[in-house]
C-alpha cells in the first residue's frame, strides 16, 4: 500500500520541482500587450473561444463505452472456461463488422 502511494507522490513531486526550478531560472521578459494574446498566425481572429459541434462525438462515445466494457469483462474472464469467452467475443465481432459495413459516416 505504501509503495503504491509513493509511486504516485514521487513523480508528482519530481514534476513540481522541475516546474519550480523552471520558474526560478526562466528569463523575465518585458510586459507587452501583443505577447499575451492567443497565437493566431498574425491574423486578427475573433477573441471568443471556439465552439465546436460535438454531436458527432456521441457516436464515438457510445462505441467507446460498449467496447471499453467489453475489455473490462474480458479482463475479468481469465479464469472462466474459454468457451464462454469465445461465445462472448464472436457476436461482438459480427456486430462490429456489421456497423463498419453499414455506417458510412463513422469517421469524424
Amino acid at each position, binding site marked *: 500500500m505504501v509503495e503504491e502511494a509513493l509511486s504516485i507522490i514521487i513523480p508528482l513531486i519530481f514534476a513540481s520541482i522541475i516546474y519550480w526550478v*523552471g520558474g526560478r531560472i526562466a528569463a523575465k521578459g518585458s510586459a507587452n500587450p501583443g505577447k499575451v494574446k492567443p*497565437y493566431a498566425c498574425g491574423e486578427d481572429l475573433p477573441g471568443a473561444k471556439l465552439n465546436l459541434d460535438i454531436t458527432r462525438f456521441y457516436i464515438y462515445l457510445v462505441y467507446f463505452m460498449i467496447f471499453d466494457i467489453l475489455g473490462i469483462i474480458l479482463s475479468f474472464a481469465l479464469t472462466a472456461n474459454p468457451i464462454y469467452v469465445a461465445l462472448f467475443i464472436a457476436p461482438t465481432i459480427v456486430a462490429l463488422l456489421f456497423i463498419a459495413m453499414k455506417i458510412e459516416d463513422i469517421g469524424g
Partner: protein
Amino acid sequence: MIVTILKMAIFPGVLFIAVLSLFYEWLDRKIYARLQHRYGPLYTGPSGILQPLADFIKLLSKEDIEPEISDKWVFRMMPVILLALPLIASMYIPILELSRGLASFEGDLIFVLLLLTLYSVSIVLAAWASTNRFSIVGGIRTAIQLFSFEIPLVISLLAPSIDAGTLSIGGLVLWQSGNLPFIMLQPIGFIVAFLCFIGELERIPFDIPHAETELVAGWITEFSGRKLALIRLSMDVELLVASMLLACIYLGGGAGPILPPIIWLILKSLVILALMSNVRALLARFRIDQAARGAWRILTPLALIQTLLAATL
C-alpha cells in the same frame, strides 16, 4: 522505507527513467535522421547525445508566456500532470527485477492502461484550457484518436493475459520466461498493439493532433518555456514507457540468458523504438477520418479475433 524512496526517486525510478527517455529521444532522432540521409544531432557531446538535455535546459530557461484569456490554473497544472502520469506508469514496469516493478499488485496492467488513457484526457484538458483555436482543434483530434485507438490497444494488451492467466505485468513476464514470448504466440496482437501505441503517442503516421502543416503545433501551441520543457519530457517518457510495456508484454521483458533483466528490457525496448522510428520515416501522415476508420474497421476486429484465437486455442 528510505530504500524504497531512494529507489523510486533515483535508480530504477524517476531520475533514471527521465535520463533514459532523453537517450531514447536522441536515438529516435538519430535513426530518423539517418533514414532521411541527414546527420541528426551532431555537436552536443559525442554524436550529439546530449542534444535532448540541452534542448530541455534551454526551454526551461526561456520566458514563460501565458495567454491572458487562458484558464490559468488548469493551464499551469497540466504540464506537471502530463509529466507525472507516464512516470507513475514506469514504476509498475518490471525494470530491475524480472517479475515485479518498484510497485506492483495483481491487476497493475489495467492501472497502467488507465494512466495512458488519463494522459490523453489531460491533453484534451490542456488544449481546452489554453483557449486557442489551434489548441482546441488539436485537443479534439486527440480525443478522436483516443476513442479510436484505445479499444484495440486495451483488447490486444489483454489478450496475452488470457493465455497467461494473470493481469500483472510481472506475471506476464514470468509466464513468458517459461514459455515462448507472446510475439510468437499472438503475432496479430503485437502488430495491433504496436500500431495503436503509435496512435496513442501521436507519432508520425498518426501525428494528426499536432500536424505542423495544418495546426501550427496543435494542442501544444500556447505552451512555452518551462511548460513546453515539461511537455516535451513527458512525451519522451511516454515513448519509453510504451516501448517498455510492449517489450514486457510481447517480447518477454527482462527474460533472457546471461545479462541482467534491466539490460534485456532496454535492448528489447530499443528494438521497438527502432521499429517506431522506421515507421515514422516510412509513412506520411493520415487524415483524421482515415485514422479513426482504420482503427475501428481494421484494428478492432483484428484485436478481437486475436483474443478469440487466444481464448480457444
